[in-house]
């Protein structure tokens, strides 16, 4: 139950961050619908964000484990 809630809040947070960052970067002048260019940009942007999230997760976990002196 608790595990599921954490997993859910984790996914919700990820979705919210991607939406905010990619809306900001891709939808410069919102029109009457998403254009093909908008969708292509959102697709690219989401991929990059998920990739970034994977890289950062691995790195931060590694650093937390190896270096207990770090404060954040």
């Amino acid at each position: 139950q608790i595990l599921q809630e954490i997993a859910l809040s984790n996914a919700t947070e990820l979705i919210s961050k991607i939406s905010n960052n990619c809306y900001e970067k891709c939808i410069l002048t919102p029109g009457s619908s998403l254009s093909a260019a908008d969708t292509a940009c959102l697709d690219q942007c989401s991929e990059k964000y998920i990739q970034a999230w994977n890289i950062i997760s691995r790195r931060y976990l590694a650093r937390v484990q190896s270096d207990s002196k770090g404060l954040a």
Partner: protein
Amino acid sequence: AELLKFVESENAKAKLQSSIHLFTDLCFKKCVPSITTGSVSQAESTCMQLANCVDRFLDTNIFVVNKISQSMQK
């Protein structure tokens, strides 16, 4: 039960208002880059008046939800 229903509906109202504040802040920043006296620009009008900014944000959100669901199924 009546009280519980009342509290629930008030909570939903508060959540709705919080989303509206979030979207207004987002759309104001996106659609109104600077304050000019006089008439509203064409781009500002298209962006804000027709509420395209909210509609496209919600589209973006749905796009991302689908994208994440797909990458979780892989």
